[in-house]
């Protein structure tokens, strides 16, 4: 196993008020060469989970519980500087705002080369050559010339690719892509996804892919964790989730996609809105919006058993049922 988050919780301090917990007991794992998608609506805690893994939580935030294991080593148990050294070597992240993640006064090539030097300890000369190679790899035309240019000379899509070159410099073992392609047009997005898929299979890189776009999930992920209000609502293989979601929230999300509706009909909706993180209802956080709700849901927090954290999950789909039959026969 390449990486696992075990019962991860994050706390954020607020001035004059109680701290909030945007991530509450999140567990998942992934193997080398695998893509795990974290899905959910804004405020569900998916970005905070990523920041915690990458060691980039805001000053007021901290990991308040759980473990983050990279190759079996718990990043939370190590001294801060050792944990950060491990992260720097093996882990990298790309966020939505690419231009903001680049240094405006350094050339693109210099920045990528710096990442190579830090991860690999290569000489400046080697790093420079590697940077040009990486920029070519992410599909920038004329990489040698482009390496000498600065972020403001690049378009948004080019900066995003430069960020990806930066992220994959020195072959990290785990890539965290948080809405990395959201701001791009679909045509560019398709190119970047091809690239990530290629790196995944050629370098055995593990990918944590954060998105709200279920189309992207279907096209890129092996496993999916659907998050709601700081917890995982459902965890499943991508084919099983799309064939037969078990958590009512996951079911609602999938049903609201226009692609999964009869043409011209009304879209299925989830009534209400996501509750604010500092005013969560007791019991299951989805209960107030849930069509399958019972008295129990208001009192007792459901555990993530059999893939869905729900007291009244939908019946397993045919795919899951066949597997079970095979096991028992």
């Amino acid at each position, binding site marked *: 196993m390449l990486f696992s988050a075990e019962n991860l919780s994050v706390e954020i301090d607020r001035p004059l008020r109680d701290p909030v917990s945007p991530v509450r007991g999140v567990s998942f794992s992934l193997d080398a060469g695998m893509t795990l998608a974290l899905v959910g*609506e*804004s405020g569900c805690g998916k970005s905070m989970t990523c920041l915690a893994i990458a060691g980039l939580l805001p000053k007021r935030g901290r990991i308040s519980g759980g473990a983050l294991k990279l190759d079996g080593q718990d990043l939370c148990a190590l001294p801060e500087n050792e944990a950060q050294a491990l992260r720097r070597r093996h882990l990298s992240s790309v966020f939505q705002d690419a231009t903001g993640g680049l240094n405006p006064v350094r050339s693109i090539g210099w920045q990528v080369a710096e990442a190579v030097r830090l991860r690999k300890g290569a000489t400046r000369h080697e790093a420079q050559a590697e940077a040009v190679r990486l920029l070519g790899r992410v599909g920038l*035309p004329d990489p040698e010339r482009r390496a000498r240019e600065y972020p403001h000379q690049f*378009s948004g*899509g*080019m900066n995003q690719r430069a960020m990806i070159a930066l992220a994959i410099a020195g072959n990290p073992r785990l890539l965290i892509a948080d809405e990395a392609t959201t701001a791009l*047009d*679909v*045509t*560019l*997005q*398709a*190119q970047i*996804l*091809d690239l990530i898929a290629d790196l995944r299979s050629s370098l055995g890189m593990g990918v944590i892919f954060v998105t*709200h*776009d*279920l*189309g*992207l*999930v*279907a*096209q*890129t992920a092996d496993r999916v964790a659907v998050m709601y209000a700081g917890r995982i609502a459902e965890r499943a293989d*991508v*084919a099983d989730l*799309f064939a037969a979601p078990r958590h009512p929230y996951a079911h*609602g*999300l*999938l049903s*609201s*996609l*226009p*692609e*999964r*509706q009869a*043409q*011209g009909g*009304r*879209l*299925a*909706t*989830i009534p209400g*809105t*996501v509750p604010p993180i500092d005013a969560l209802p007791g019991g299951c956080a989805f209960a107030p919006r849930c069509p399958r709700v019972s008295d129990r849901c208001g009192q007792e927090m459901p555990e993530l058993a059999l893939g869905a954290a729900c007291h009244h999950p939908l019946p397993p789909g045919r795919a899951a049922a066949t597997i079970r039959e095979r096991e028992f026969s």
Partner: protein
Amino acid sequence: MTALLRAEDLRKSYQVGRGGLFRRARRFNAVDGVSLTLNRGETLGVVGESGCGKSTLSRLVLGLSPHDSGEITFDGAPLPDEGSDDWRHLRRRMQLVYQDAAGALDPRQSIGTQIAEPLKIHNLPPERAEQALADVGLPQAMAARHPHELSGGQLQRVVIARALTLEPELMVMDEPVSALDVSIQAQIVNLIQDLQQARGMAYLFVSHDLSIVHHVADRVAVMYLGQVVEEAPKAAFYTRALHPYSKALLAAVPVPDPATRGRAAPRIGDPPNPAAPPTGCRFHPRCPHATEQCRVEAPALRDFGGRRAACHRIEELSQ
């Protein structure tokens, strides 16, 4: 029947950078010869990549920015100049809803005041504001709240309610659901469709999201670097797009079904700088089917039985 909205060879350019004493400033044609019609009660979806001019087009048809040349007619009469009394009067009948709902509202005024404002401007009875709130599915108590107390989906409902108070015939929707979460997106899409059914409004629905457009539009127009390259009834467009650019766009949309993985979608490279569009067919540097003719000669938007497309090679390619 006359069309509700008709645009004829519409053009709009913006200055890029500054000119000097001996140097003319460069201009960039955001909308470059667009013609389209929108009938009453109909939804025309306008799609394209960022920078294709779709948002500029939506401002032009409302008269919010003046066009350089071409003609816009609304309900058979030419669109009056922006700011004139006639234009103000006409604006009752055409409203705009755009992506940034929070930015469209005043943070210091209550929701009720803001919804009633268009009524005050047009000397209409303020009771309509209450009705509008109900029409978009918000409780009356919401009127006393301020924008920061509302969620993104609720804010977009408020903006739609405000537009509804004047009972417009045309609503221009520029990415109305793009900023919203999936589950909320579905709520707003349903609302938009219900309102159209109840009131027979026409929608100019501008979006980069081809699956939403598939759901709401009757016809689709694809824009590329300021021009319409294809326009077709929805069913025809989504089952068999004619233009290579439309095909590439459709193929690039990630389908939410893991069973469709591994389809080889055409990779068409980066869009060119819109300020310096290529010669000939503007799509030719990215087109897998480009020939010498495409490099030199700009294709006209031709009729193909109820649909239009601008490509030299459609006949050959569709064989």
